[in-house]
């Protein structure tokens, strides 16, 4: 069995890690550096099967696995292909206690929690459960070969991750052939030939007797002064316990400097119920102060770099980290932090603290810096596991639109058809024949109760009490500051019940708005939002009535009248109104019957020239009528006066929401207004500047070419110049004329026909 290492096959045995396979073949995964074979250091990282920063000592070799070393002087390159990486799933689990690490202390902790009647989940990297972070609300995130685990602990998290061996810092510590005692034992057990081995220990007794295959030629107490070699270790220079320097030629140096707790997970969980046990809770050993050599190979920080930032005045762990990036790389400080602490402790002790008050307040041995998730390098897929982007709702006709080849887009918070391939034909179907459009996205809310009238009267600027049962009225919706927030209809169903409509974009806010005021004013009303429960189809065009009669409409509806009818055997609420400028009926119906109603209308209208129309056409039609779209044509400070719709206010009402603000702002001089413009084709883009005598006087909010009028029609904001609205302006560098709206069918005869 082979893995492929830098394009060359390398044999491995069952159960080998990638690192073992490489070492057996005399290879190092990377440039070099001391190996720990325990997942603690950055020295075995490689790109495996296209994923960078994989710890090869923790990765089981598999046939055909592609292993690539990092470039010698660069970070691993990002993949050049644009293929989507694999989707990674997340699994959410819940328990009382999570125990991380199943060594002796972890087993004891798990047993104790179980005995106390707690539900316990254990995680162990030995079985491929690699914890990458602990997050607020006590969520432990772990990586496994089957995806990510998101474990929610109710009581506590116990960290029993043990301790890491401290790695040597000395000139030449980047060479290949340096290992920790555990790594030496592991590699020897796997049959890796390490050649002539020198063991150097700091004082404790390193026992490698369980590894009889190791060819130990020297075993010294002392400190490594230098590792010698080109790429690979050839000799080690040691200052022994007697103060003598020895140079010993060897192939492998095993260096023991003590242990440092694997406490990253604890250090990232301040304020959370997370505790360390066993070696993860031990005091860290302090290695000798590094005077030369690479301290942090992740971020290329040498002992000389530490000295330089110390001399510049960086004396605290957190500051040295920021100044050098030490501890911010793939090992997250496991290798470098013990040496940083030793360096700072040594320099602090040696400094004249009376002359350096900031040093005087530092403790001799500083605590390690705060850790942050994640402690392992993750793929974007792993980071995104379990996360979902915002879902855009679909109307009951969504599949129908797509079946008809509609160009769909997310508009007003919904998936909506923009057009069905021929917007001009859709336009003429409305103006000359009949067309249907999906308006299911409109907000639809019922208000019922003894206070319904009083509530709406106080809320809306129109005189609600003058609306008769079965009649509807267009209304502006204002906020407390008198600005236009939305618009819609009030439809009176009975003396105590009304149906309100809102724009598609405003509907999600509308229910909260109603509930908020109802509660604040202590109104006895019930409120039901039916926006997503009812589909709505707009049947519009001069032949709309004829089509609906074929479909079952028996009674004539006057303009702004509503009632119930069975259309195509679908129970419908029929609203006669018009946004397009032609005869229009909105059919509100149960959303599960949208497709049936739509298809029947399309069939019945085939000989009438029926076509569905998309939003592009609808926006064109409404602009010809000068209908404002709140949010597109209005701005955050649009008052009814500024948009020329004071006719929609009943200032003689005792009160309505925004009335005091309107009274106040009406006293100020009008400075700008939303007005209509026309000019020859082509249509300027929406947002185009409006100029007058070389000065900026406003901008276009809506713009379209009107096929029926043969010219461009626009709405736009126009500043008053010397108290009047300019009549002649320049838009897009061409002359345009201010005109009254609507542009089309000024008397509204077609809509009311």
């Amino acid at each position, binding site marked *: 069995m082979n893995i492929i290492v830098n394009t060359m096959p390398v044999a491995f045995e069952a159960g080998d890690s990638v690192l073992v396979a490489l070492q057996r073949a005399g290879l190092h995964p990377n440039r070099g550096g001391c190996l720990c074979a325990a997942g603690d250091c950055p020295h075995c990282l490689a790109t495996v099967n296209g994923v960078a920063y994989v710890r090869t000592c923790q990765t089981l070799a598999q046939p055909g696995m592609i292993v690539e070393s990092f470039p010698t002087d660069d970070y691993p390159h990002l993949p050049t292909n644009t293929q989507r990486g694999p989707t990674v*799933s*997340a*699994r*959410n*689990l*819940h328990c009382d206690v999570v125990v991380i690490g199943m060594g002796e202390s972890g087993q004891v902790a798990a047993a104790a929690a179980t005995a106390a009647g707690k539900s316990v989940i254990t995680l162990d990297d030995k079985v491929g459960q690699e914890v990458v972070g602990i997050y607020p609300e006590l*969520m432990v995130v772990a990586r496994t070969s089957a995806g990510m685990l*998101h474990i*929610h602990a109710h009581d506590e998290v116990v960290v029993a991750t043990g301790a890491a061996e401290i790695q040597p810092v000395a000139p030449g510590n980047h060479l290949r052939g340096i290992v920790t005692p555990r790594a030496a034992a592991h590699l020897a057990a796997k049959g890796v030939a390490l050649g002539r081995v020198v063991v150097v220990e700091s004082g404790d007794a390193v026992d490698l007797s369980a590894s009889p295959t190791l060819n130990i030629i020297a075993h010294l107490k002392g400190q490594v002064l230098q590792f010698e070699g080109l790429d690979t270790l050839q000799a080690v220079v040691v200052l022994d316990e007697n103060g003598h320097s020895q140079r010993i030629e060897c192939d492998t140096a095993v260096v023991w400097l003590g242990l440092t707790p694997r406490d990253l997970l604890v250090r990232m969980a301040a304020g959370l119920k997370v505790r360390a046990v066993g070696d993860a809770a031990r005091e860290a050993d302090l290695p000798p102060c590094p005077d030369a050599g690479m301290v942090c190979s992740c971020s290329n920080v040498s002992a000389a770099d530490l000295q330089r930032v110390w001399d510049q005045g960086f004396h605290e762990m957190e500051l040295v980290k920021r100044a050098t990036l030490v501890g911010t790389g793939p090992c997250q400080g496991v290798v470098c932090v013990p040496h940083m602490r030793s360096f700072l402790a040594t320099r602090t002790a040696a400094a004249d603290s009376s002359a350096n008050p900031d040093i005087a307040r530092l403790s001799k041995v500083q605590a390690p810096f705060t850790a942050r998730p994640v402690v392992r390098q993750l793929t974007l897929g792993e980071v995104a596991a*379990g*996360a*979902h*982007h*915002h*879902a*855009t*709702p*679909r*109307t*009951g006709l*969504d599949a129908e639109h797509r079946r008809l080849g509609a160009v769909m887009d997310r508009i007003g918070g*919904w998936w909506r058809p923009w057009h069905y391939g021929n917007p001009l034909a859709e336009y003429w179907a409305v103006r000359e024949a009949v067309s249907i459009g999906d308006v299911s996205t409109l907000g639809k809310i*019922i208000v*019922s*109760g*003894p206070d319904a009238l009083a509530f709406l009267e106080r809320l809306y600027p129109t005189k609600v009490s003058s609306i008769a049962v079965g009649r509807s009225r267009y209304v502006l919706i204002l906020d407390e500051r008198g600005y236009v927030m939305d618009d819609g209809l009030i439809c009176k169903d009975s003396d*105590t*019940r009304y149906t309100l409509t809102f724009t598609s974009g405003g509907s999600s806010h509308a229910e909260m708005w109603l509930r908020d005021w109802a509660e604040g004013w202590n109104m*006895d*009303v*019930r*409120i*039901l939002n*039916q926006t*997503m*429960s*009812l589909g709505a189809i707009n049947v519009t065009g001069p032949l709309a009535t004829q089509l609906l009669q074929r479909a079952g409409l028996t009674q004539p509806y006057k303009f702004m009248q509503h009632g119930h009818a069975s259309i195509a055997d679908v129970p419908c609420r029929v609203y006669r109104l018009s946004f397009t400028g032609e005869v229009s009926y909105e059919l509100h119906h*149960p*959303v*599960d*019957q949208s497709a049936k109603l739509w298809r029947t209308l399309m069939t019945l209208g085939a000989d009438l020239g029926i076509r569905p129309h998309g939003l592009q056409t609808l926006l064109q039609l409404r602009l010809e009528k000068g209908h404002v779209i709140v949010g597109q044509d209005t701005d955050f400070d649009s008052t009814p006066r500024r948009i020329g719709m004071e006719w929609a206010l009943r200032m003689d009402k005792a009160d309505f929401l925004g009335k005091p603000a309107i009274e106040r702002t009406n006293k100020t001089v009008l400075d700008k207004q939303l007005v209509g413009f026309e000019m020859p084709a082509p249509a300027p883009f929406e947002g185009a500047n409006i100029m007058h005598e070389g000065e900026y006087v406003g901008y276009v909010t809506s713009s379209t070419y009107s096929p029926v009028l043969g010219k461009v029609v626009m709405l736009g904001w126009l500043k008053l110049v010397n108290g009047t609205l300019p009549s002649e302006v320049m838009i897009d560098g061409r002359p345009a004329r201010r005109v009254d709206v609507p542009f089309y069918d000024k008397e509204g005869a077609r809509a009311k026909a």
Partner: protein
Amino acid sequence: MPKLNYLPFTRIVATPAALDVTIWPTEALALRTAADEVLLLSSAPPTLVDPHAIVVPDSGFVGAWLPAEAVQAIFEQHCEWALPATRSVFVQGAVAGIAAKLWLEAERGLLIVPAAYGHDFAERTGLA
């Protein structure tokens, strides 16, 4: 996996006090979605003491009855909150990033989402 289907609910909005004292038809599944709202699966209409209650048929939700293990699997994969231990129980919250409701019995559960989000929910959970 079962598919999501439109559910023939009756949607009721009434005063909380009225809903508190309503006796639901025996075979009915009455889900109290808010203090003032109930989603009712029942062939018989309820009797309410609130004369201004809004009682309307509502097909705005899709859902599926699933074996309890399937519900558990969906929650494990798509939901950060835990299923309650009690049965029968009604809960609401984000599942697969979508506002969902769940009626959970000992052996099965009814998972409910707004029909407008049914497509995305099915795609995310495999209930398509």
